[in-house]
């Protein structure tokens, strides 16, 4: 069995082995193996290519951009997605604009350990994907499975554009697969995680699993819920979403991030503008509450969507 976290480690090992242009730079990623051990053993296996950086998110990202200009393919680990705000300027103003401005691509991969875990609180729990998706020039990946964590990270390194790789910390240890995949669905294609007939849930990352659990529960009542895993939120596979809504007539968009201007809003906007006639009921969405992410498990468990709250929303949608 291999976990989601091990898949991320294995993808990096393979990228380092396959491509001499790849190196890893970040805080504590060297001999220590990273705060979550996503680079465990890599510094030893690939001497001189897995390097501890100073605690300087702006300079870490900025240096990766410079290295990319020189033809390297850096993988950057932000210790927590939340801290990427300190490197935000480099990501959105430098990396995202470089190719468009100068015709020189910027193939950097920025790994963001994302999302909430119990007790992590306001500054170690954030989901930043919508923020980065807002900026033209970035690819934003949100893998929900062990297979995608592995194959999408390898694809991120190969892509000529800067990739924001939102890996979910909640899935690091919980999620396991039999083995690493040998084939990959390309980025930009969503995945039908569960086929259904009565309503479509469009979601991504850890919320795929809450949604699947919800669909399982509703199946005992006779409802057949379709679950679409977006895999990447930019690009966003509108075609697969519309095809699903065409089958079910009902849409619930679910995201762990805050609601304002986010991925669920984008999904609903696209379906409403391009597939309004497919809808049998007003589309719905469910997000985290619009407050900072709370520390205590009693509050955190209610702050983010769960199978239970998704089920409540779905029942409303099915009754509409």
């Amino acid at each position, binding site marked *: 069995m291999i976990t989601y976290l091990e898949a991320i480690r294995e993808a990096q090992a393979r990228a380092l082995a396959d491509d001499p242009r790849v*190196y890893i*730079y970040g805080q504590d990623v060297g001999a220590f193996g990273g705060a979550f051990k996503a680079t465990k053993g890599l510094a030893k296996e690939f001497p*001189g*290519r897995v390097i501890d*950086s*100073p605690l*300087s*998110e*702006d*300079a*870490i*990202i*900025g*240096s*990766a*951009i*410079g*290295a*990319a*200009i*020189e*033809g*390297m393919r*850096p993988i950057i680990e932000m210790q927590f997605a939340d801290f990427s705000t*300190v490197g935000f*300027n*480099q990501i959105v*103003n*430098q990396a*995202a*604009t*470089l*190719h*468009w*401005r*100068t*015709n*020189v*691509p*910027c*193939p950097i991969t920025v790994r963001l350990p994302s999302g909430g875990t119990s007790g992590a609180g306001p500054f170690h729990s954030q989901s930043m994907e919508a923020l980065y998706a807002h900026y*033209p*020039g970035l*690819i934003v990946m949100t893998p929900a499975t062990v297979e995608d964590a592995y194959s999408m990270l390898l694809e991120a390194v190969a*892509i*000529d*554009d800067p990739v924001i790789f939102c890996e979910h910390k909640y899935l690091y240890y919980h999620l396991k697969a039999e083995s690493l995949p040998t084939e990959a669905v*390309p*980025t*930009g294609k969503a995945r039908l995680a569960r086929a259904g007939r009565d309503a479509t849930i469009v979601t991504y990352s850890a919320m795929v699993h809450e949604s699947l659990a919800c669909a399982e529960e509703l199946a005992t009542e006779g409802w057949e819920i379709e679950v679409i895993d977006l895999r990447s939120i*930019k*690009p*966003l*596979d*509108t*075609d697969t979403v519309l095809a699903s809504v065409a089958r079910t007539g009902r849409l619930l968009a679910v995201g762990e991030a805050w609601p304002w201007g986010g991925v669920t809003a984008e999904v609903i906007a*696209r379906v409403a503008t391009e597939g309004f006639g497919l809808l049998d009921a007003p589309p719905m969405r469910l997000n985290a509450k619009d407050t900072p992410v709370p520390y205590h498990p009693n509050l955190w468990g209610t702050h983010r969507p769960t199978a239970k709250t998704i089920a409540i929303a779905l029942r409303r949608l099915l009754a509409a």
Partner: protein
Amino acid sequence: MVPAAEALPHTIEPHLMTSESPQRLYIDAFRWMLLARIVDDRIATLYRSGKIQGGVFLGRGQEALSVATGISLRKGDVFAPLIRDQGGRLAFGESLLDCTRTYLGSRLGPMRGRDGNVHRGRPREGLLAMISHLGAMIPVVAGTLLARRYQGIIGTVGAASIGEGGTSTGAFHEALNLAAVEKLPLVLVVANNQYSYSTPNSRQFACADLIDRAIGYGVDGHSVDGTDLGACLDVLGEAVTRARAGRGPQLVVASLLRLAGHGEHDDASYVDPALRESALGRDCLRVAEQQILAERWADAETVATWRESAAQQVEDALATTMREPLPDPNQEDWCALASPHLKDGYAE
């Protein structure tokens, strides 16, 4: 670096292209300064007549420092100029056409109307294209040098320009510290021109002298009179040589005065008149010309022909550029991605 023939046709006679003596180097540098001043003045005139989109920022008073930086670098080095580096750009090898095409929005220029004016560059040729956020280019230069280390390329140097205001940013601190930790061959050139837009040094930093910061970062520090071309050439030459020799980052702080507004929209009425009258307020171009005449390295007539030749090149570049097509929104590829296969589902 030695001026590249293809970058600046007819600027400098071949015998001057090798700066084997200090006197030759001085004259080469002076001629780049002259050319930079003339381009800047011409662009300012075009700006005032409404021919330039966006802002115009001049290097007036900073040419000695800027040219000394550019001329101390070689082909294969990296340079991240800032808004007052017309001289350094030319000395590093940027063509006049890249300049005029970007200011006038020519579709044939390196930025193709997508970015303008001082934001131009050719990153693959070592000339980085600045973003507006001050300090942000320094870690990018550091990254190019890290890459070269990974690639086994030795002996190249990266230089970044910044003003005293930019030293107050987090990016400056993070990048210089990172470069010091990595012992990178970075030459960080601070032009302390006394005002960050309108903010005087008394509101910018509290240390006695910015160069004192070098010891805190664990890097070599060099102070220089930015109005003195000879001093700038000596100090920048030394800093670049030390960086190239593996001595780690070099922090250069030059004292001078910006002899223009922050941009051409700004009359700089906030500048203390006493500063203008002080040694800092000397015009480095005039000082250098006087030096050349006093040392009899050239006579006034020769300097006049250099001036005419530079002016002619600027007019030629402008005339060429003005005949060129402008960006066309109907032909623009409105997608920021380098990966064509990901364009589906990318933009709305």
